[in-house]
């Protein structure tokens, strides 16, 4: 019992440390090649594989700068608030059938959606406590965006819950069948798009908008605290990709023996993470008004319609 707990916490923590680095390194190389560059080639020797580790070592040795005008306790706490919810989400994502999940709660989906929603708090804390006009504008943009996109995210997740008749993530994967790819396609699209906005990735990066707001709500951060906030972004990519894979793409389900199911989960998550990276290269940033319009006039109505459709089909079948 105690051993199982330690193994699970250690496994989740290892995933939390390793997967974001993999995504980050993939982003370095994939972006570079999409733009006709080589990307990092030096650190570690082979194609710069150790670049992010070197970055981490560098960040750990940097001076801790807190502006005089900042609200210091809040300023210092914000990186932890940004990072830890995503760590906790990983606990609920099933890697494979049976026991290959950190915790199988009956209300897993509910907790996961709640945890993803904590992000808005971190954005406001960082932006407001920095006492800087750029960070404040960035934080307000971020708060508006995160609150708005919370809705389509939650409604799309509710559609899956209705289709599966349960809120437990492993049970949702059990209930999944390939027909969902068609039937739940609008919800999947809405969920993934809203997820992108929740983690403020391009094209939804108006809150950090480096060409107009310096670096948005992160402007005043430096050194290790900045590194933690950056880590939160990449854990966010892992979490949103994994959730989309588990809820809409069948998680561990796929051809081959069930004992290799974890490989499917990782492959699907990786493929979605690659899409997230690709969007950063291919899409220009949306304006703030476009971001709100896409949510309220596009995603929310689609998600509501999907909910009605899902309920009707679930009753008929």
């Amino acid at each position: 019992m105690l051993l199982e707990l330690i193994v699970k916490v250690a496994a989740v923590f290892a995933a939390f440390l390793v997967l974001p680095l993999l995504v980050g390194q993939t982003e370095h190389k994939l972006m570079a090649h999409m733009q006709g560059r080589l990307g990092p080639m030096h650190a570690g020797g082979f194609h710069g594989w150790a670049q992010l580790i070197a970055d981490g070592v560098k960040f750990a040795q940097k001076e801790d700068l807190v502006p005089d005008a900042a609200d210091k306790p809040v300023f210092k706490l914000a990186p932890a608030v940004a990072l830890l919810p995503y760590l906790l989400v990983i606990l609920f994502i099933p890697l494979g059938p049976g026991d290959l999940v950190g915790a199988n709660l009956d209300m897993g989906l509910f907790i996961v959606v709640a945890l993803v929603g904590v992000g808005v708090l971190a954005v406001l804390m960082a932006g407001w406590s920095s006492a800087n006009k750029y960070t404040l504008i960035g934080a307000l943009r971020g708060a508006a965006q995160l609150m708005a996109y919370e809705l389509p995210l939650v409604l799309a997740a509710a559609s899956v819950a209705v289709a599966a008749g349960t809120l437990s993530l492993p049970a949702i994967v059990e209930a999944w069948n390939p027909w969902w790819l068609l039937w739940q396609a609008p919800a999947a699209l809405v969920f993934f798009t809203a997820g992108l906005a929740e983690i403020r990735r391009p094209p939804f990066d108006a809150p950090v908008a480096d060409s107009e707001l310096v670096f948005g709500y992160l402007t005043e951060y430096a050194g290790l605290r900045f590194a933690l906030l950056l880590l939160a972004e990449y854990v966010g990519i892992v979490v949103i990709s994994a959730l989309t894979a588990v809820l809409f793409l069948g998680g561990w389900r796929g051809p081959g023996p069930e004992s290799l199911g974890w490989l499917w989960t990782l492959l699907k998550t990786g493929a979605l993470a690659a899409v997230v990276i690709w969007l950063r290269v291919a899409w220009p940033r949306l304006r703030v008004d476009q971001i709100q319009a896409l949510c309220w006039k596009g995603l929310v109505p689609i998600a509501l319609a999907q909910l009605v459709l899902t309920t009707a089909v679930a009753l008929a079948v």
Partner: protein
Amino acid sequence: METSGPADYLTFGVLLLTGFAFVAVAMTANRILRPSAPSADKAQTYECGVDPAPDAPPGRLASLAYPRTGAASPPRDHVGKDWAQVQIRYYVYAFLFVLFAVEAVFLFPWAAVFRAFGTAAAVEMGVFVGVLALGLAYAWRKGVLRWR
């Protein structure tokens, strides 16, 4: 339906503590490894290279910013005044959000059990969602969703 026991919540708690420990250890390592050379210039609010502090003694950055005027000190003024009118267009979205967030809270438990109650439960939720959708349509029609 399987039920989750206290053990699952225990894992959650232990992981949360592990997370805080991770941040604490990282910051402690940082404290040991980092140099510390504080200065007034470094602690200034970032302002694209222009000195924003009205009462701060002109630092090195400030004298760099005004090299040609020969003035002993830069003009003591913010870039922009302390108070500025900024049009916050977001508050309507906050209202809309609260409406739908309340709906979402009811949706999840309902989704887990509605099969047991059949069509009646589905119709009731349909009415609930319908009223909210009507609200959104009203806001849309009134032009609230237009960015002005």
